[in-house]
């Protein structure tokens, strides 16, 4: 094995095909976007060099700022929810769940395999208020909380929350499986020793489990971040970005600008911004890893 990996040709053989593929489908388009962002109009039609005009426009654009705020809120809520609840569920599976382990784990993981559009349709029905109350509103109305019955996805104040709840529900099973695997890797003796030393549940988590799970938590945060920063299909399926712009994300705005408004140049600037946001976000999360 060592001999094979010591051979530079062998390394090249392993790396180059993937590298070529990666260059073609990731790096080239990014460079292409940067190039497009210096132009105005759509390629082929009124395609003029605009220099940095598109970039100047970016931070004066109210719609862009609105989309950015929505997107950042969404990232914060969904990331915390997905990773937090995923971790919580994994702890639940590991320490408290006694019976029906497999069935419950399967049920929690199940939403991960559902297509986003189907989930969107499902939640449209759950949040429904007209013509009939959906699941949520009919439960509220039946337990005497008629006051809380409201158009969950039809008003700006609750639409983003409703969307986030859906995306957390979909992905938490995925993270719980990862965390559960990591928890199983922690030797039982350590936990037992801690218990003998009189460690309660909170301290056990704080002093033993959390440090040992740290790399996994960071990986999950990066996963969740990259998944949420591109917020698009679930919002489209549930609310179409509405009401108004309440759930319109950066990528939805980018799509509109480039493909509906025919301003591919300006759309590319937004794309470049999303790219930078991705890098910056992952960078910040990874910094927690290097501290120790």
């Amino acid at each position, binding site marked *: 094995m060592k001999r094979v990996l010591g051979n530079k040709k062998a390394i090249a053989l392993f790396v180059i095909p993937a590298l070529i593929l990666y260059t073609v489908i990731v790096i080239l388009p990014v460079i292409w976007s940067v190039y497009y962002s210096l132009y105005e109009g759509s390629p082929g039609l009124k395609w003029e060099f605009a220099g940095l005009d598109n970039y100047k426009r970016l931070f004066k654009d109210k719609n862009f700022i609105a989309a950015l705020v929505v997107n950042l809120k969404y990232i914060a809520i969904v990331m915390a929810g997905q990773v937090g609840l995923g971790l919580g569920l994994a702890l639940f599976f590991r320490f408290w769940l006694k019976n029906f382990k497999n069935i419950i784990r399967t049920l929690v993981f199940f939403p991960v395999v559902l297509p986003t559009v189907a989930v969107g349709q499902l939640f449209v029905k759950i949040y429904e*208020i*007209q*013509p009939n109350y959906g699941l949520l509103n009919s439960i509220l109305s039946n337990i005497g909380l008629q006051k809380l019955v*409201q158009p969950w996805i*039809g008003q*700006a104040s609750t639409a983003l929350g409703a969307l986030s709840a859906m995306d957390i529900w979909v992905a938490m099973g995925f993270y719980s499986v990862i965390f559960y695997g990591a928890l199983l890797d922690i030797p039982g003796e350590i936990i037992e020793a801690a218990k003998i030393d009189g460690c309660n549940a909170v301290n056990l988590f704080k002093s033993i489990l959390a440090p040992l799970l740290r790399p996994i938590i960071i990986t999950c945060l990066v996963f969740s971040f990259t998944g949420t920063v591109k917020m698009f299909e679930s919002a489209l399926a549930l609310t179409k970005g509405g*009401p108004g712009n309440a759930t*319109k994300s950066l990528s939805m705005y980018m799509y509109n600008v480039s493909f*509906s*408004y025919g301003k591919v140049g300006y759309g590319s600037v937004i794309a470049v911004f999303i790219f930078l946001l991705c890098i910056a976000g992952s960078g910040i999360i990874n910094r927690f890893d290097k501290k120790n």
Partner: protein
Amino acid sequence: MKKRILSILLITTMIAVMLTGCGGKKTEPSTGETNSGTDTTTDIAADTTDTNAAAGDDKQIAKKIKILSIWAEDKDNGKLITDLTKRYISDVNPNFEYEFELVSADNLKQKIATLVASDDLPDVFVYESGKPIVDLIEADKLLDVGKALEDLGVADMLDEGAVSLLKTLSGTDELYDLPLGMNVEGFWYNKALFEQADVEIPTTWEDFEAACAKLQAAGIQPLTAGGADKWPVTRLINAYVMRSMGVDAMQKAADGEAKYTDAGYVAAAAKIQDLASKGYFGEGVTTVDQNTAGNMLLSGEAAMFYNGSWFTEALTADTNPAGADGIGFFNIPVVDEAKGTITEYSMNCGNILALDKSKYDEGTAGWLKYMVENIGNEAMTQFGAVKGYKYDVAGELSTYSQIVADELAKVSKASTWFEAAMNSETSTVAQDNVQTLINGDATPQEYMQSIQDAYDGSLE
């Protein structure tokens, strides 16, 4: 050994999947081709009209055209076009071939923009009237259909109303597109509910508001609208605008002669917001899509519903719980008799059919002539629908189609829809923000201002 075989197998599958993924688009047109090749005339109506004979003396020029449609070959206008084309091939010109390509309505404008950029427009394509088609006319891409039909001697097959509407929409004296529908819009109402609440058909806007209040008092939801789809709500604003400011008010704002923030437009937005804030649309109108809204009217859960005459498709379906006579129609109530009268309708020709200028030749002309001569009758016999062409068959008109035909006969002037003259940016803003307007999160002033901002911004 086994593992190795398995891994090789997996790799080959992956590569195969990748390749098919890349090549997906290219295989599409070929299905269209096979369809045209294996043309069985089974689904074609036996009554070939006598006009065929007239077209039959054309030279049988070999020609292959490409048709881009937003309807599948077995649906709606897609079926109409393919059926007629197949019949043209079997009856008139066996050397004629066609390729049918389907694109979703959402992607239509983007697709056409790409094709224009690569100078590869299809011979015939479905498109949107109003601002989108104006761009193509200005780029000199479209055939002057009016003139072409004149040359072919079939210009009189088009309905004059449709022609003048299309000319208005493109702002030209020539005709650059063919209608695929002839729609009037207005309020559909549930007769049983009107009777139950003892409400008469409103003729003025005050009557209309009074009717809403009366219905609500009787425990009936007065209105329903597809707020999730956005456009049904802007249509309501448009309805008030055309009655209070005249049929050309939206066009004036788009031309820069008026501002969207002028008092009249703001007042219209305020009227609709007012209807919503009184709860006439029920709770959460922005979560209801247009289909659901239509069903609510039919099943008696709401009394009035603004929609176009294409709604007859749902009305005539056997599944309509209101039955064959349970739903009626009235035009937008009058606000100011001096500005807009009851015989002025909000109208459109649906999606339209346009022809590429550079690809048009004698071969296409034969097909075009046949289409225009027969589409009116075909649409009437197959769908009982008026498409904007003359017809001389007595179609089996349902009560609802008869209502539409009667309304069409009353038209004195037509207005277009709210976003017709807006470019896509302004139109997107107008539609997105209308949800905040009816939710009460934006004032009418703010709403119209956002449209004006988008309009100013996109002129830069």
